[in-house]
Protein backbone atom coordinates (compact mmCIF):
# COMPACT_ATOMS: atom_id res chain seq x y z
CA UNK A 1 0.00 0.00 0.00
CA UNK A 2 2.68 2.62 0.89
CA UNK A 3 4.54 1.84 -2.33
CA UNK A 4 1.42 2.25 -4.38
CA UNK A 5 0.73 5.53 -2.69
CA UNK A 6 4.20 6.93 -3.30
CA UNK A 7 3.91 5.92 -6.93
CA UNK A 8 0.58 7.67 -7.16
CA UNK A 9 2.06 10.74 -5.53
CA UNK A 10 4.90 10.84 -8.03
CA UNK A 11 2.46 10.60 -10.93
CA UNK A 12 0.28 13.31 -9.42
CA UNK A 13 3.23 15.60 -8.93
CA UNK A 14 4.50 14.97 -12.45
CA UNK A 15 1.15 15.77 -14.02
CA UNK A 16 0.79 18.88 -11.86
CA UNK A 17 4.24 20.01 -13.00
CA UNK A 18 3.34 19.52 -16.65
CA UNK A 19 0.10 21.51 -16.34
CA UNK A 20 1.90 24.23 -14.40
CA UNK A 21 4.64 24.40 -17.03
CA UNK A 22 2.11 24.79 -19.84
CA UNK A 23 0.25 27.51 -17.97
CA UNK A 24 3.46 29.30 -17.03
CA UNK A 25 4.56 29.19 -20.66
CA UNK A 26 1.23 30.71 -21.72
CA UNK A 27 1.45 33.47 -19.10
CA UNK A 28 5.11 34.16 -19.76
CA UNK A 29 4.89 34.11 -23.53
CA UNK A 30 3.51 37.66 -23.98
CA UNK A 31 6.59 39.02 -22.17
CA UNK A 32 8.88 36.94 -24.32
CA UNK A 33 7.14 38.12 -27.46
CA UNK A 34 7.13 41.74 -26.34
CA UNK A 35 10.89 41.64 -25.79
CA UNK A 36 11.64 39.89 -29.09
CA UNK A 37 9.38 42.23 -31.05
CA UNK A 38 11.06 45.25 -29.50
CA UNK A 39 14.37 44.24 -31.13
CA UNK A 40 13.06 43.70 -34.65
CA UNK A 41 13.19 46.18 -37.52
CA UNK A 42 9.69 47.32 -38.47
CA UNK A 43 9.53 45.36 -41.75
CA UNK A 44 10.35 42.15 -39.97
CA UNK A 45 7.17 42.02 -37.92
CA UNK A 46 5.05 42.02 -41.06
CA UNK A 47 6.46 38.82 -42.57
CA UNK A 48 4.64 35.52 -42.71
CA UNK A 49 5.33 33.13 -41.09
CA UNK A 50 6.65 35.30 -38.24
CA UNK A 51 10.32 34.93 -37.36
CA UNK A 52 10.93 34.09 -33.74
CA UNK A 53 14.28 35.81 -33.37
CA UNK A 54 15.17 39.11 -35.00
CA UNK A 55 17.63 38.82 -37.89
CA UNK A 56 19.80 41.56 -36.46
CA UNK A 57 19.10 42.75 -32.92
CA UNK A 58 17.78 46.21 -33.57
CA UNK A 59 18.61 48.23 -30.45
CA UNK A 60 17.74 51.46 -32.20
CA UNK A 61 14.02 50.91 -31.38
CA UNK A 62 14.75 51.75 -27.78
CA UNK A 63 16.61 54.91 -28.71
CA UNK A 64 13.80 55.92 -31.04
CA UNK A 65 11.13 55.16 -28.44
CA UNK A 66 12.98 57.52 -26.11
CA UNK A 67 13.68 60.30 -28.62
CA UNK A 68 10.76 60.37 -31.07
CA UNK A 69 8.62 61.17 -28.07
CA UNK A 70 9.91 63.07 -25.01
CA UNK A 71 10.19 59.85 -23.00
CA UNK A 72 12.37 61.33 -20.26
CA UNK A 73 10.00 64.24 -19.86
CA UNK A 74 7.11 61.78 -19.39
CA UNK A 75 9.19 59.68 -17.05
CA UNK A 76 10.09 62.67 -14.92
CA UNK A 77 6.45 63.86 -14.81
CA UNK A 78 5.33 60.41 -13.69
CA UNK A 79 8.10 60.11 -11.12
CA UNK A 80 7.30 63.58 -9.78
CA UNK A 81 3.62 62.73 -9.39
CA UNK A 82 4.49 59.38 -7.82
CA UNK A 83 6.85 60.94 -5.28
CA UNK A 84 4.53 63.72 -4.12
CA UNK A 85 1.43 61.53 -4.16
CA UNK A 86 3.14 58.68 -2.34
CA UNK A 87 4.55 61.02 0.32
CA UNK A 88 1.04 62.30 0.88
CA UNK A 89 -0.41 58.82 1.15
CA UNK A 90 2.36 57.73 3.53
CA UNK A 91 1.68 60.72 5.76
CA UNK A 92 -2.08 60.29 5.79
CA UNK A 93 -2.28 56.50 5.88
CA UNK A 94 0.11 56.04 8.81
CA UNK A 95 -1.61 58.60 11.04
CA UNK A 96 -5.11 57.53 10.10
CA UNK A 97 -4.38 53.81 10.30
CA UNK A 98 -2.84 54.35 13.72
CA UNK A 99 -5.99 56.09 14.89
CA UNK A 100 -7.99 53.18 13.51
CA UNK A 101 -5.93 50.47 15.17
CA UNK A 102 -3.83 51.40 18.20
CA UNK A 103 -6.12 53.84 19.95
CA UNK A 104 -9.40 52.72 21.46
CA UNK A 105 -12.04 55.37 21.17
CA UNK A 106 -15.77 55.55 20.87
CA UNK A 107 -16.92 55.89 17.27
CA UNK A 108 -13.78 54.37 15.82
CA UNK A 109 -15.60 51.50 14.12
CA UNK A 110 -18.20 53.77 12.57
CA UNK A 111 -15.53 55.97 11.01
CA UNK A 112 -13.61 52.92 9.90
CA UNK A 113 -16.61 51.43 8.13
CA UNK A 114 -17.31 54.76 6.45
CA UNK A 115 -13.71 54.83 5.28
CA UNK A 116 -13.95 51.32 3.87
CA UNK A 117 -17.19 52.22 2.14
CA UNK A 118 -15.42 54.93 0.13
CA UNK A 119 -13.60 52.10 -1.63
CA UNK A 120 -16.91 51.07 -3.18
CA UNK A 121 -17.72 54.49 -4.57
CA UNK A 122 -17.08 54.49 -8.31
CA UNK A 123 -14.53 57.16 -9.12
CA UNK A 124 -16.92 58.59 -11.71
CA UNK A 125 -19.35 59.72 -9.02
CA UNK A 126 -16.86 62.18 -7.58
CA UNK A 127 -14.86 62.85 -10.74
CA UNK A 128 -17.10 65.48 -12.28
CA UNK A 129 -17.63 67.69 -9.19
CA UNK A 130 -13.89 67.46 -8.52
CA UNK A 131 -13.16 68.46 -12.10
CA UNK A 132 -15.48 71.47 -11.73
CA UNK A 133 -13.86 72.34 -8.42
CA UNK A 134 -10.33 72.06 -9.81
CA UNK A 135 -11.16 74.10 -12.88
CA UNK A 136 -12.52 76.88 -10.65
CA UNK A 137 -9.28 77.07 -8.66
CA UNK A 138 -7.19 76.75 -11.86
CA UNK A 139 -5.71 73.37 -10.99
CA UNK A 140 -6.76 71.77 -14.28
CA UNK A 141 -3.72 71.59 -16.56
CA UNK A 142 -1.35 71.23 -13.61
CA UNK A 143 -0.10 68.25 -11.60
CA UNK A 144 -1.84 69.49 -8.46
CA UNK A 145 -5.03 67.38 -8.72
CA UNK A 146 -2.80 64.32 -9.14
CA UNK A 147 -0.52 65.00 -6.19
CA UNK A 148 -1.69 67.15 -3.26
CA UNK A 149 -5.00 65.34 -2.49
CA UNK A 150 -2.87 62.37 -1.39
CA UNK A 151 -2.03 64.21 1.83
CA UNK A 152 -5.70 64.16 2.76
CA UNK A 153 -6.07 60.51 1.85
CA UNK A 154 -7.87 60.98 -1.45
CA UNK A 155 -8.50 57.50 -2.92
CA UNK A 156 -6.32 56.29 -0.08
CA UNK A 157 -8.78 53.99 1.68
CA UNK A 158 -6.96 50.89 0.50
CA UNK A 159 -3.60 52.12 1.85
CA UNK A 160 -5.11 53.12 5.19
CA UNK A 161 -6.67 49.69 5.44
CA UNK A 162 -3.37 48.05 4.54
CA UNK A 163 -1.41 50.06 7.14
CA UNK A 164 -4.04 49.26 9.74
CA UNK A 165 -3.55 45.56 9.07
CA UNK A 166 0.17 46.01 9.76
CA UNK A 167 -0.40 48.03 12.94
CA UNK A 168 -2.83 45.41 14.20
CA UNK A 169 -0.11 42.77 14.22
CA UNK A 170 1.94 44.63 16.89
CA UNK A 171 1.57 43.56 20.53
CA UNK A 172 -0.16 45.83 23.02
CA UNK A 173 2.62 45.55 25.62
CA UNK A 174 4.89 47.66 23.45
CA UNK A 175 2.94 50.86 23.81
CA UNK A 176 2.21 50.20 27.48
CA UNK A 177 5.94 49.88 28.14
CA UNK A 178 6.66 53.04 26.18
CA UNK A 179 3.95 54.94 28.07
CA UNK A 180 5.39 53.87 31.40
CA UNK A 181 8.67 55.27 30.16
CA UNK A 182 6.87 58.58 29.68
CA UNK A 183 6.14 58.65 25.94
CA UNK A 184 2.98 60.41 24.86
CA UNK A 185 0.70 59.04 22.11
CA UNK A 186 2.54 60.85 19.31
CA UNK A 187 5.94 59.68 20.53
CA UNK A 188 4.71 56.10 20.81
CA UNK A 189 3.52 56.43 17.25
CA UNK A 190 6.70 57.63 15.59
CA UNK A 191 9.37 56.27 17.92
CA UNK A 192 7.99 52.80 18.64
CA UNK A 193 5.29 51.83 16.18
CA UNK A 194 6.37 53.41 12.89
CA UNK A 195 9.79 51.69 12.80
CA UNK A 196 8.04 48.35 13.34
CA UNK A 197 5.76 48.65 10.35
CA UNK A 198 8.51 49.33 7.79
CA UNK A 199 7.33 46.38 5.63
CA UNK A 200 3.92 48.04 5.57
CA UNK A 201 5.42 51.34 4.50
CA UNK A 202 7.33 49.58 1.74
CA UNK A 203 4.14 47.88 0.57
CA UNK A 204 2.31 51.22 0.49
CA UNK A 205 5.12 52.83 -1.51
CA UNK A 206 5.06 50.06 -4.07
CA UNK A 207 1.28 49.98 -4.37
CA UNK A 208 1.26 53.76 -4.81
CA UNK A 209 3.88 53.65 -7.55
CA UNK A 210 1.97 50.92 -9.36
CA UNK A 211 -1.22 52.96 -9.01
CA UNK A 212 0.42 56.09 -10.45
CA UNK A 213 1.92 54.10 -13.33
CA UNK A 214 -1.51 52.58 -14.02
CA UNK A 215 -3.54 55.74 -13.69
CA UNK A 216 -4.85 56.83 -17.04
CA UNK A 217 -8.24 58.43 -16.48
CA UNK A 218 -7.10 61.15 -14.09
CA UNK A 219 -4.17 62.41 -16.18
CA UNK A 220 -6.42 62.16 -19.22
CA UNK A 221 -8.93 64.46 -17.56
CA UNK A 222 -6.62 66.93 -15.82
CA UNK A 223 -3.58 67.17 -18.10
CA UNK A 224 -3.94 68.94 -21.40
CA UNK A 225 -0.48 69.78 -22.71
CA UNK A 226 2.06 67.31 -24.02
CA UNK A 227 4.90 68.58 -21.85
CA UNK A 228 2.90 67.48 -18.79
CA UNK A 229 1.95 64.01 -20.07
CA UNK A 230 2.58 61.03 -17.84
CA UNK A 231 4.04 57.82 -19.29
CA UNK A 232 0.56 56.34 -19.66
CA UNK A 233 -0.69 59.32 -21.69
CA UNK A 234 2.62 59.42 -23.57
CA UNK A 235 2.46 55.85 -24.78
CA UNK A 236 -1.19 56.28 -25.74
CA UNK A 237 -0.22 59.32 -27.77
CA UNK A 238 2.73 57.44 -29.28
CA UNK A 239 0.49 54.55 -30.34
CA UNK A 240 -1.65 56.99 -32.29
CA UNK A 241 1.32 58.78 -33.91
CA UNK A 242 2.25 58.31 -37.56
CA UNK A 243 5.88 57.46 -36.77
CA UNK A 244 5.07 54.69 -34.31
CA UNK A 245 5.54 51.03 -35.20
CA UNK A 246 4.97 47.79 -33.29
CA UNK A 247 8.65 47.26 -32.40
CA UNK A 248 8.98 50.87 -31.23
CA UNK A 249 5.75 50.56 -29.26
CA UNK A 250 6.95 47.37 -27.61
CA UNK A 251 10.23 49.08 -26.74
CA UNK A 252 8.20 51.95 -25.35
CA UNK A 253 5.95 49.62 -23.35
CA UNK A 254 9.05 47.97 -21.87
CA UNK A 255 10.59 51.32 -21.05
CA UNK A 256 7.37 52.31 -19.37
CA UNK A 257 7.06 49.10 -17.33
CA UNK A 258 10.70 48.71 -16.36
CA UNK A 259 10.75 51.12 -13.39
CA UNK A 260 7.86 49.36 -11.62
CA UNK A 261 9.15 45.92 -12.50
CA UNK A 262 12.57 46.75 -11.02
CA UNK A 263 11.01 48.12 -7.84
CA UNK A 264 8.82 45.03 -7.69
CA UNK A 265 11.78 42.67 -7.72
CA UNK A 266 13.36 44.56 -4.84
CA UNK A 267 10.33 44.46 -2.56
CA UNK A 268 8.51 41.43 -3.98
CA UNK A 269 8.03 39.82 -0.58
CA UNK A 270 6.52 42.84 1.06
CA UNK A 271 4.24 43.34 -1.89
CA UNK A 272 2.89 39.80 -1.76
CA UNK A 273 2.51 40.09 2.00
CA UNK A 274 0.51 43.27 1.52
CA UNK A 275 -1.87 41.61 -0.90
CA UNK A 276 -2.50 38.64 1.33
CA UNK A 277 -2.96 40.82 4.41
CA UNK A 278 -5.78 42.73 2.76
CA UNK A 279 -7.33 39.64 1.20
CA UNK A 280 -7.34 37.17 4.05
CA UNK A 281 -7.31 38.76 7.41
CA UNK A 282 -10.05 41.28 6.67
Amino acid at each position, binding site marked *: MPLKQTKKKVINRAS*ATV*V*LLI*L*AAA*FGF*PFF*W*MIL*TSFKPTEEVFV*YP*PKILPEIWHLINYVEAATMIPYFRYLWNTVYIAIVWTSGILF*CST*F*TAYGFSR*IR*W*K*GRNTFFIVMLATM*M*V*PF*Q*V*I*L*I*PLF*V*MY*SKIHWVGTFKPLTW*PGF*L*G*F*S*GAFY*IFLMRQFFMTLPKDLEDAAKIDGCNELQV*FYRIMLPLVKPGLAAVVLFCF*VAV*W*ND*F*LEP*LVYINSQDKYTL*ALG*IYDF*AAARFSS*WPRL*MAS*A*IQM*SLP*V*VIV*FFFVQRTF*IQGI*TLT*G*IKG
Partner: protein
Amino acid sequence: MTKGERKKILIGLAFISPWLLGFFIFYIYPFVASIYYSLTVYHIISPPEFIGLRNYVDLITRDPLFIISIKNTLYYAGISLPLGIVTGVIIALLLNTRIKGMAFYRTIFFLPVIVPFAAHAILWKWILNPTFGIVNYFFSLLGVNNPPGWFQVAGWSKPGLIVMAIWASGQAIIIYLAGLQDIPKTLYEVADIDGANWFQKIKNITLPMISNVILFNLVMGLIHAFQFFTQPFIISKGTGRPMDSMLMYNLYLYKQAFKFFNMGYACAMAWLLFVAIILITLFVFKTSKSWVFYGGE
Protein backbone atom coordinates in the same frame (compact mmCIF):
# COMPACT_ATOMS: atom_id res chain seq x y z
CA MET B 1 -18.67 59.79 29.36
CA THR B 2 -15.60 60.07 31.55
CA LYS B 3 -12.86 62.59 31.02
CA GLY B 4 -10.51 59.82 29.92
CA GLU B 5 -12.95 58.59 27.29
CA ARG B 6 -13.40 62.08 25.92
CA LYS B 7 -9.65 62.52 25.72
CA LYS B 8 -9.33 59.23 23.83
CA ILE B 9 -11.92 60.34 21.31
CA LEU B 10 -10.03 63.57 20.74
CA ILE B 11 -6.74 61.72 20.27
CA GLY B 12 -8.39 59.26 17.90
CA LEU B 13 -9.97 62.04 15.86
CA ALA B 14 -6.66 63.89 15.78
CA PHE B 15 -4.93 60.89 14.26
CA ILE B 16 -7.56 60.37 11.59
CA SER B 17 -7.99 64.10 10.95
CA PRO B 18 -6.01 64.20 7.66
CA TRP B 19 -8.29 61.57 6.20
CA LEU B 20 -11.40 63.06 7.82
CA LEU B 21 -10.73 66.47 6.26
CA GLY B 22 -10.14 64.81 2.90
CA PHE B 23 -13.34 62.84 3.34
CA PHE B 24 -15.37 66.05 3.47
CA ILE B 25 -13.55 67.72 0.58
CA PHE B 26 -13.19 64.75 -1.75
CA TYR B 27 -16.21 62.62 -0.92
CA ILE B 28 -19.01 64.44 0.91
CA TYR B 29 -18.92 67.61 -1.17
CA PRO B 30 -18.58 65.81 -4.54
CA PHE B 31 -21.33 63.39 -3.49
CA VAL B 32 -23.81 66.15 -2.85
CA ALA B 33 -22.68 68.14 -5.89
CA SER B 34 -22.90 65.09 -8.11
CA ILE B 35 -26.46 64.30 -7.04
CA TYR B 36 -27.40 67.90 -7.73
CA TYR B 37 -25.66 67.99 -11.13
CA SER B 38 -27.42 64.78 -12.11
CA LEU B 39 -30.71 66.69 -11.84
CA THR B 40 -29.52 69.48 -14.13
CA VAL B 41 -28.35 70.36 -17.59
CA TYR B 42 -24.77 71.44 -17.01
CA HIS B 43 -22.12 72.21 -19.62
CA ILE B 44 -19.68 73.96 -17.25
CA ILE B 45 -19.57 77.23 -19.23
CA SER B 46 -23.02 78.23 -17.95
CA PRO B 47 -24.47 77.48 -14.50
CA PRO B 48 -26.43 74.23 -14.02
CA GLU B 49 -30.09 74.40 -14.95
CA PHE B 50 -32.47 72.25 -12.90
CA ILE B 51 -34.52 69.71 -14.87
CA GLY B 52 -35.57 67.17 -12.25
CA LEU B 53 -35.22 63.53 -13.20
CA ARG B 54 -35.08 64.11 -16.95
CA ASN B 55 -31.48 62.86 -17.32
CA TYR B 56 -32.42 59.57 -15.70
CA VAL B 57 -35.57 59.20 -17.78
CA ASP B 58 -33.68 60.01 -20.98
CA LEU B 59 -30.95 57.52 -20.17
CA ILE B 60 -33.34 54.66 -19.55
CA THR B 61 -35.92 55.36 -22.21
CA ARG B 62 -34.15 56.91 -25.17
CA ASP B 63 -30.44 56.32 -25.18
CA PRO B 64 -29.53 53.17 -27.13
CA LEU B 65 -25.80 53.68 -26.41
CA PHE B 66 -26.50 53.62 -22.68
CA ILE B 67 -28.17 50.22 -23.06
CA ILE B 68 -25.32 48.98 -25.28
CA SER B 69 -22.73 50.09 -22.74
CA ILE B 70 -24.57 48.23 -19.97
CA LYS B 71 -24.73 45.08 -22.08
CA ASN B 72 -21.02 45.33 -22.89
CA THR B 73 -20.11 45.77 -19.24
CA LEU B 74 -22.33 42.89 -18.11
CA TYR B 75 -20.92 40.67 -20.85
CA TYR B 76 -17.37 41.48 -19.76
CA ALA B 77 -18.05 41.07 -16.03
CA GLY B 78 -20.32 38.06 -16.48
CA ILE B 79 -17.66 36.05 -18.27
CA SER B 80 -14.36 37.38 -16.95
CA LEU B 81 -15.32 37.05 -13.26
CA PRO B 82 -16.45 33.39 -13.18
CA LEU B 83 -13.69 32.43 -15.60
CA GLY B 84 -11.16 34.31 -13.47
CA ILE B 85 -12.31 32.42 -10.37
CA VAL B 86 -11.95 29.05 -12.09
CA THR B 87 -8.52 29.73 -13.60
CA GLY B 88 -7.33 31.54 -10.47
CA VAL B 89 -8.26 28.69 -8.13
CA ILE B 90 -6.79 26.07 -10.47
CA ILE B 91 -3.48 27.93 -10.75
CA ALA B 92 -3.39 28.53 -6.99
CA LEU B 93 -4.02 24.81 -6.39
CA LEU B 94 -1.12 23.96 -8.68
CA LEU B 95 1.08 26.52 -6.96
CA ASN B 96 0.18 25.01 -3.60
CA THR B 97 1.69 21.63 -4.48
CA ARG B 98 5.32 21.13 -3.49
CA ILE B 99 6.84 21.50 -6.93
CA LYS B 100 10.40 22.71 -7.41
CA GLY B 101 10.92 26.27 -8.61
CA MET B 102 7.76 27.61 -7.00
CA ALA B 103 9.17 31.12 -6.58
CA PHE B 104 9.76 31.25 -10.31
CA TYR B 105 6.22 30.14 -11.19
CA ARG B 106 4.71 32.54 -8.70
CA THR B 107 6.64 35.41 -10.25
CA ILE B 108 5.51 34.43 -13.77
CA PHE B 109 1.84 34.49 -12.77
CA PHE B 110 2.20 37.66 -10.78
CA LEU B 111 4.31 39.73 -13.16
CA PRO B 112 1.39 40.71 -15.46
CA VAL B 113 -0.16 42.54 -12.48
CA ILE B 114 2.82 44.90 -12.41
CA VAL B 115 2.54 45.82 -16.11
CA PRO B 116 0.96 49.29 -16.28
CA PHE B 117 -2.52 49.29 -17.82
CA ALA B 118 -1.45 51.36 -20.81
CA ALA B 119 1.44 49.00 -21.62
CA HIS B 120 -0.89 46.04 -21.02
CA ALA B 121 -3.32 47.39 -23.62
CA ILE B 122 -0.63 48.09 -26.23
CA LEU B 123 1.08 44.74 -25.72
CA TRP B 124 -2.12 42.77 -26.23
CA LYS B 125 -3.25 44.86 -29.16
CA TRP B 126 -0.10 43.62 -30.86
CA ILE B 127 -0.30 40.01 -29.67
CA LEU B 128 -3.94 39.77 -30.74
CA ASN B 129 -3.38 41.59 -34.03
CA PRO B 130 -5.61 39.61 -36.44
CA THR B 131 -3.11 39.50 -39.33
CA PHE B 132 0.38 39.69 -37.81
CA GLY B 133 -0.30 38.76 -34.20
CA ILE B 134 1.38 35.70 -32.76
CA VAL B 135 -1.80 34.24 -31.27
CA ASN B 136 -3.53 33.99 -34.62
CA TYR B 137 -0.35 32.52 -36.08
CA PHE B 138 -0.60 29.75 -33.48
CA PHE B 139 -4.23 29.30 -34.49
CA SER B 140 -3.19 28.91 -38.13
CA LEU B 141 -0.63 26.28 -37.11
CA LEU B 142 -3.46 24.40 -35.42
CA GLY B 143 -5.31 24.51 -38.71
CA VAL B 144 -7.88 27.16 -37.80
CA ASN B 145 -8.98 28.61 -41.14
CA ASN B 146 -10.98 31.47 -39.81
CA PRO B 147 -9.07 32.87 -36.82
CA PRO B 148 -10.67 35.48 -34.54
CA GLY B 149 -10.54 39.12 -35.65
CA TRP B 150 -10.07 40.22 -32.03
CA PHE B 151 -10.14 43.98 -31.61
CA GLN B 152 -11.05 44.57 -35.23
CA VAL B 153 -14.42 42.85 -35.24
CA ALA B 154 -17.35 43.49 -32.93
CA GLY B 155 -17.91 39.86 -31.97
CA TRP B 156 -14.34 39.21 -30.84
CA SER B 157 -13.28 42.39 -29.07
CA LYS B 158 -14.78 41.53 -25.68
CA PRO B 159 -13.35 37.99 -25.68
CA GLY B 160 -10.01 39.70 -26.35
CA LEU B 161 -10.47 41.92 -23.31
CA ILE B 162 -11.41 38.89 -21.22
CA VAL B 163 -8.24 37.05 -22.26
CA MET B 164 -6.29 40.13 -21.18
CA ALA B 165 -8.08 40.18 -17.82
CA ILE B 166 -7.30 36.52 -17.14
CA TRP B 167 -3.65 37.11 -17.99
CA ALA B 168 -3.49 39.91 -15.44
CA SER B 169 -5.34 38.12 -12.63
CA GLY B 170 -2.23 37.33 -10.57
CA GLN B 171 -3.37 39.38 -7.62
CA ALA B 172 -6.38 37.11 -7.11
CA ILE B 173 -4.15 34.05 -7.55
CA ILE B 174 -1.88 35.21 -4.72
CA ILE B 175 -4.89 35.70 -2.46
CA TYR B 176 -6.27 32.25 -3.31
CA LEU B 177 -2.85 30.78 -2.62
CA ALA B 178 -2.69 32.41 0.81
CA GLY B 179 -6.18 31.06 1.50
CA LEU B 180 -5.08 27.55 0.53
CA GLN B 181 -2.04 27.76 2.77
CA ASP B 182 -4.29 28.63 5.72
CA ILE B 183 -6.21 25.36 5.48
CA PRO B 184 -5.16 23.06 8.37
CA LYS B 185 -3.31 20.00 7.13
CA THR B 186 -5.20 17.79 9.58
CA LEU B 187 -8.39 18.12 7.54
CA TYR B 188 -6.73 16.38 4.60
CA GLU B 189 -5.15 13.76 6.82
CA VAL B 190 -8.53 12.85 8.25
CA ALA B 191 -9.96 12.70 4.73
CA ASP B 192 -7.11 10.40 3.66
CA ILE B 193 -7.90 8.03 6.51
CA ASP B 194 -11.51 8.02 5.38
CA GLY B 195 -10.31 7.12 1.90
CA ALA B 196 -11.48 10.27 0.16
CA ASN B 197 -10.19 10.77 -3.38
CA TRP B 198 -8.66 13.96 -4.80
CA PHE B 199 -11.92 15.25 -6.24
CA GLN B 200 -13.81 14.68 -2.98
CA LYS B 201 -11.13 16.52 -1.03
CA ILE B 202 -11.32 19.51 -3.37
CA LYS B 203 -15.08 19.60 -3.24
CA ASN B 204 -15.57 18.99 0.48
CA ILE B 205 -12.50 20.58 2.05
CA THR B 206 -10.62 22.95 -0.25
CA LEU B 207 -13.47 24.86 -1.86
CA PRO B 208 -15.49 25.40 1.36
CA MET B 209 -12.34 26.47 3.18
CA ILE B 210 -11.45 29.12 0.59
CA SER B 211 -15.03 30.17 -0.15
CA ASN B 212 -14.60 33.36 1.89
CA VAL B 213 -11.55 34.24 -0.21
CA ILE B 214 -13.51 33.56 -3.39
CA LEU B 215 -16.20 35.93 -2.13
CA PHE B 216 -13.59 38.62 -1.42
CA ASN B 217 -12.07 38.32 -4.90
CA LEU B 218 -15.52 38.22 -6.49
CA VAL B 219 -16.59 41.46 -4.83
CA MET B 220 -13.32 43.22 -5.64
CA GLY B 221 -13.51 41.91 -9.19
CA LEU B 222 -17.08 43.18 -9.54
CA ILE B 223 -16.16 46.67 -8.42
CA HIS B 224 -13.26 46.77 -10.86
CA ALA B 225 -15.11 45.22 -13.78
CA PHE B 226 -17.92 47.74 -13.49
CA GLN B 227 -15.38 50.55 -13.70
CA PHE B 228 -13.35 49.00 -16.51
CA PHE B 229 -11.95 51.83 -18.58
CA THR B 230 -8.28 52.15 -19.46
CA GLN B 231 -7.71 49.09 -21.65
CA PRO B 232 -10.80 49.43 -23.88
CA PHE B 233 -10.15 53.18 -24.11
CA ILE B 234 -6.57 52.74 -25.31
CA ILE B 235 -7.30 49.81 -27.62
CA SER B 236 -10.22 51.55 -29.31
CA LYS B 237 -8.49 54.96 -29.21
CA GLY B 238 -11.23 56.34 -27.04
CA THR B 239 -14.06 55.39 -29.38
CA GLY B 240 -15.35 52.06 -28.05
CA ARG B 241 -15.42 50.76 -31.63
CA PRO B 242 -15.70 48.43 -33.57
CA MET B 243 -19.49 48.90 -33.63
CA ASP B 244 -19.50 50.14 -30.01
CA SER B 245 -18.49 46.65 -28.92
CA MET B 246 -15.88 48.05 -26.51
CA LEU B 247 -18.06 50.92 -25.36
CA MET B 248 -17.92 50.01 -21.67
CA TYR B 249 -20.15 51.89 -19.27
CA ASN B 250 -17.38 54.15 -18.03
CA LEU B 251 -16.06 54.78 -21.49
CA TYR B 252 -19.47 56.07 -22.50
CA LEU B 253 -19.69 58.10 -19.29
CA TYR B 254 -16.30 59.64 -20.05
CA LYS B 255 -17.40 60.54 -23.56
CA GLN B 256 -20.57 62.21 -22.28
CA ALA B 257 -18.64 64.18 -19.68
CA PHE B 258 -15.42 65.16 -21.41
CA LYS B 259 -16.18 64.94 -25.12
CA PHE B 260 -19.69 66.39 -25.15
CA PHE B 261 -19.47 68.16 -21.77
CA ASN B 262 -22.87 66.82 -20.69
CA MET B 263 -21.85 66.91 -17.05
CA GLY B 264 -25.35 66.51 -15.64
CA TYR B 265 -26.07 63.55 -17.88
CA ALA B 266 -22.74 61.93 -16.95
CA CYS B 267 -23.42 62.44 -13.23
CA ALA B 268 -26.74 60.66 -13.63
CA MET B 269 -24.86 57.79 -15.28
CA ALA B 270 -22.36 57.71 -12.41
CA TRP B 271 -25.12 57.49 -9.83
CA LEU B 272 -26.91 54.70 -11.66
CA LEU B 273 -23.59 52.87 -11.72
CA PHE B 274 -23.11 53.37 -7.99
CA VAL B 275 -26.60 52.11 -7.22
CA ALA B 276 -26.04 49.10 -9.50
CA ILE B 277 -22.75 48.25 -7.77
CA ILE B 278 -24.38 48.48 -4.33
CA LEU B 279 -27.35 46.34 -5.35
CA ILE B 280 -25.23 43.68 -7.03
CA THR B 281 -22.78 43.55 -4.12
CA LEU B 282 -25.65 43.20 -1.66
CA PHE B 283 -27.11 40.47 -3.83
CA VAL B 284 -23.76 38.64 -3.90
CA PHE B 285 -23.44 38.90 -0.10
CA LYS B 286 -27.01 37.68 0.38
CA THR B 287 -26.60 34.66 -1.86
CA SER B 288 -23.11 34.03 -0.49
CA LYS B 289 -24.64 32.79 2.75
CA SER B 290 -25.57 29.61 0.94
CA TRP B 291 -22.09 28.91 -0.42
CA VAL B 292 -19.57 30.64 1.83
CA PHE B 293 -18.39 28.56 4.74
CA TYR B 294 -17.49 30.42 7.92
CA GLY B 295 -16.95 27.40 10.16
CA GLY B 296 -13.20 27.73 9.93
CA GLU B 297 -12.95 30.74 12.21
